[in-house]
């Protein structure tokens, strides 16, 4: 990837999500929550899910602080997974998340873009183990 490929990194799609994030805040009745950080940028993201009895994600919220890529990606992720089943989320791959972000990310910035996704994956897999609330 050459430097010129970064030109559109901060396009409207990213900046809109960064400035007006989808479901940024907290759920009062979250089924589960999990947080993580990216030591490179100091990004922090916390994800909270409300999952119904059928195993569908009714609501997804995030909170956090960090670079535009990490925060916009968390917002995009929350928008994407609402209505999906836990099984569907388990099937999501990192590339699916990168595709949702749309803009090209270098290997370094993929850590920002995938932070929320990584937290989500950790959370849904720990659901299988405990079915309970796991918060760091």
């Amino acid at each position: 990837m050459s430097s010129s490929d970064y030109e559109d990194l901060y396009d409207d799609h990213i900046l809109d999500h960064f400035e007006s994030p989808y479901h940024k805040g907290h759920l009062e009745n979250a089924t589960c929550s999990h947080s993580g950080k990216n030591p490179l940028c100091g990004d922090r993201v916390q994800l909270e899910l409300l999952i119904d009895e059928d195993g569908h994600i009714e609501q997804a919220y995030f909170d956090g602080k960090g670079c535009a890529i990490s925060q916009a990606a968390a917002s995009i992720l929350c928008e994407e997974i609402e209505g999906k089943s836990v099984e569907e989320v388990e099937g999501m791959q990192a590339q699916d998340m990168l595709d949702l972000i749309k803009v090209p990310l270098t290997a370094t910035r993929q850590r920002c873009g995938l932070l929320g996704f990584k937290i989500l994956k950790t959370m849904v897999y720990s659901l299988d183990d405990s079915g309970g609330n796991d918060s760091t």
Partner: protein
Amino acid sequence: MTHTAAGPALDVEAVRADFPILHKPLPNGAPLVYLDSGASAQKPRPVLDKLIECYENYYANAHRGVYYFGVRIDEELEASREKIQRFIGAAQPEEVIFTGGTTMSINFVAYGWGRKFLKAGDEIVLNEMEHHANLVPWQQLAREKQATLKYLPLTSDGRLDMSRLDDVLNGRTRLVAVSGMSNVLGTINPIDEIATKAHACGALVVVDAAQTAPHMPIDVRDPVVDFLAFSGHKFFGPSGVGVLYGRRELLEAMDPFLTGGGMIDEVYPNYSTWAELPAKFEAGTLPIAEAIALGAAVDYVEGLGFEAIHAHEQRLLEKAHRVLAEIPGLVIHGPTPQHKGSIVSFTVDGIHPHDLAQLLDQKGVACRASHHCTMLLHEWLNVPATTRASFALYNTEAEVDVLAEAIQFARKKFRLA
């Protein structure tokens, strides 16, 4: 570790002509504006030539061969050591140990001196602006020996609060670890006063000179310091090589940290005895060509002269402070230019430092954005990260303007202007 304020002008275009990498345009066509010399400096032609000369003409392992190349490489290596000895004002070349870099040098002291001589209840004085390289080894040592860490507080503008020095020094203080110049704030620390007071308490002084060496003269005997470390790669020399200076009696008394080939005198089935200095601390094969080329970096810097380098960098620094201060929402962290070397770390309201650095890159400006291996300092600054422009002898005033324009470009991109 002093510097003067005025001096003859540096011919910056002639200097730039010595650095081939500065003339290679980036893939997007922008000219390179390299403002990350604090992380690692670019290399002048004489250093590159010396590496090639070594590999093409007389390369062999050092301190091993009796054949022509073996003798020649030793002569080159020891000539480099003597250049460094003179450069830092050491009394003897044997007090100059080649290491892998500043981090390894400081670990040599923490383990070689600290493990042998530190006792439970002893105290080590640190401060929050230290790079992790001059912090974490002391933490590890203190944990192992049940020693206590004490922190000299900082002033609100990011200098060591010297009025509190007497509060942290006492009869139990065994060591003060301090940087000559902060890698984030740029602050130049008063090593003379620290050394005088530390020595009066019977404590040793370890100076992290990684940021000092490229910018100002070093004299380990004025003020007297006990150990001093710097890296080749920040000093326009090759990566992979660094220097540990230690006073001879301390190096003689302490244990080697790395043991193995080349550092022994005699080996018996159950124990070994150590070689004379400096071999005692140079186990294994050194970064030979790199250590030799570090001598060429010393020649290069001395050829320009620190008076000219300092005057040039101070102009860049003052201009950077002046120009960046006009940008809305931009905060420079650290003291005013007269108290620091040519590093400007800043934050811009509304743009995360990593996003800012990425947008600066689009304009060809290479700045580092992170906590710069100073998590305690960033905690103290109450920001997760900063963007750092670090200037060196090859930067120009025009590049300061490019930096300012690129920051404005980033603010527009983020809909802040």
